[in-house]
């Protein structure tokens, strides 16, 4: 494995460990602010980070912990922000849901579904007005694409030929409802085709496949000025059971926000949570042994302790 690939593997493991640490402190009641953890979203965040060039910019949602950490590569500043300390990434002024980091080109994060799409589109229009070559990456989700802003921005980006990559993190859930509990399925390929936007689907959390494809997306949108939507099928790890008179046995509800109490950290395979492609750590075992993964994990755990000591 070459150095770039090794760094990507290590960053995915580190991002898992960093979030597990945040979750542990969250469970201890350390934070007053709401945090939307992104266990299970590590591969896409690390791949976007790796695909971004110096002149590119990133617009995020309320679930932004993974991208912000991937861009920083360190935990302390983000953790301090969660504690609302002056030493935090935004001096304690933004908390988690709106956390941005302009120095690392994380320009804006919004806690309002669909709200970051127009702001990102406007930023891309600004690049055009300034004749600046850069790609704007806008992250959204399967809940936000139900908002009018999603459709509006596909129209605007296409009409104005703006080089933008829209990442749709499709985890099938919006708060406590699955897609099939709240609406009909939306065929994003057909929708994007109809408004002149390109489409790509990513799934299975293979980081090298993701990176190759995202780099191609970036090159293509920059050359063609045709925006592209990348739908990423993923699993947000964590869950709870709703027990009431309609569901006496308990109904499975996927994790949305807050501490993730039902994340089971496998003792033998820590920090892996699931033995399937739904867990970004599992596909890494195609490229390295479980023993190596655990060794990297131990090494990165020590590094995190050192950083926070």
């Amino acid at each position, binding site marked *: 494995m070459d150095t770039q690939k090794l760094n990507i593997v290590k960053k995915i493991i580190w991002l898992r460990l960093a979030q597990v640490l945040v979750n542990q402190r969250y469970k201890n009641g350390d934070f007053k602010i709401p945090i939307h953890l992104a266990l299970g979203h590590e591969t896409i965040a690390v791949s976007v980070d790796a695909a971004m060039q110096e002149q590119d910019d990133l617009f995020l949602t309320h679930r932004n912990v993974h991208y912000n950490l991937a861009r920083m590569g360190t935990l302390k500043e983000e953790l301090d922000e969660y504690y609302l300390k002056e030493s935090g990434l935004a001096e304690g002024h933004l908390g988690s849901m709106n956390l941005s980091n302009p120095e690392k080109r994380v320009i*804006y994060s*919004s806690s309002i579904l669909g709200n970051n799409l*127009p*702001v*990102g589109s*406007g*930023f891309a*229009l*600004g690049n055009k007005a*300034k004749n600046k070559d850069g790609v704007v990456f806008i992250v959204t989700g399967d809940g936000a694409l139900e908002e009018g802003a999603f459709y509006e921005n596909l129209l605007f980006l296409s009409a104005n030929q703006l080089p933008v990559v829209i990442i749709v993190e499709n985890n099938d859930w919006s708060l406590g409802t699955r897609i099939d509990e709240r609406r009909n399925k939306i065929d994003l390929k057909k929708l994007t085709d109809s408004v002149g936007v390109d489409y790509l689907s990513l799934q299975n959390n293979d980081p090298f496949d993701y990176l190759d494809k995202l780099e191609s997306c970036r090159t293509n949108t920059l050359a063609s000025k045709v925006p592209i939507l990348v739908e990423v099928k993923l699993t947000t790890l964590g869950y709870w059971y709703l027990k009431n008179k309609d569901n006496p046995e308990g109904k499975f509800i996927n994790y949305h926000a807050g501490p993730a109490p039902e994340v089971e950290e496998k003792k033998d395979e820590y920090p892996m949570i699931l033995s399937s492609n739904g867990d970004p750590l599992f596909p890494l075992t195609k490229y390295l042994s479980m023993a190596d993964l655990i060794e990297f994990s131990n090494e990165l755990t020590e590094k995190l302790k050192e950083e926070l000591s």
Partner: protein
Amino acid sequence: MRYTQYINSLLKENVRKQSGTVIFGQNIDAASCLSGLTRGLSSESDGLTINTPNIENSLVGIGFGLMLNAVSSIFFMKQQDFLLLGIDQVVNTYNIIRQTQPLASFTIFPVTVDSGYDGPQSALNNFDDFCSIAGVEGYSFTNKADAESILSNYLIKPGFRILSTGQRLLQQETLDIEVIDQDADCNYFQYKAGDDVSIVCFNHSLPYGLGLSEVMLERGVNPSLFSVNSHLNAEFDQIVKNIKNTGKLVLIDDTKSRNRTSDRFLLNVLNSCTLQETFVISPLVSNESFYPCKDLLNIDYAEITSAILACINS
């Protein structure tokens, strides 16, 4: 010259001064160009001019995105009610933008539809409510002088604000009256300086104040006349000082807002002045207000003048 043409000339003049400004909105550079308001702006600007799709919510966010990229822009909007669709951006996005020190300007320029007969919809005249919910600066203008000051000060200036004027005024000849004093930030303008009564006009109601002033002058009453152009700020020491001196207040406000700048102003006046006579004139908002009807205040200038005269002579 019609007010539309005059405002159009001021817009051109100010856009010409600022290189790289992006101008956008629906039909701004096509067909009637918002009834002439934005005609010819594209040829005065060396920045992008965009006839946009009908995506008002996004267009507000796009202005903020441009601002974050240090690019100034103006979003022209045919009717103020369209801005309701962008209220998430006006409030929530601005709550983050306001924490920064923006290098660029973002101005939303909606026309307040106060010409009447539009029916239950498309007749929103609630500028104060927009400014209140977002805590955003807003300025309206009604005549030649205040439009010139406000547009040269605020059309393109780092930061975010909303500027508006009334559709009724845009269809009329430009009101050309002498300003005798004004606040440095264009929060208010003074047009007459008499000692008998203070007339203070809000929103787009200055023409009513002028009409009342003329009747008063004919009957020997010397009014002071002010127009408050800000839709956010409501504390003006100079106007309060004038009201303390005259002891009589006629407040005119033609907004349909429920959270009025004029109410906050009046509270401030009542807390600091002893008044001999007070008239507060504002629209009666009922279900009937939303039927197609004229959108005008019905003010009996003679009756108010008689009451002020009686007070002076008592």
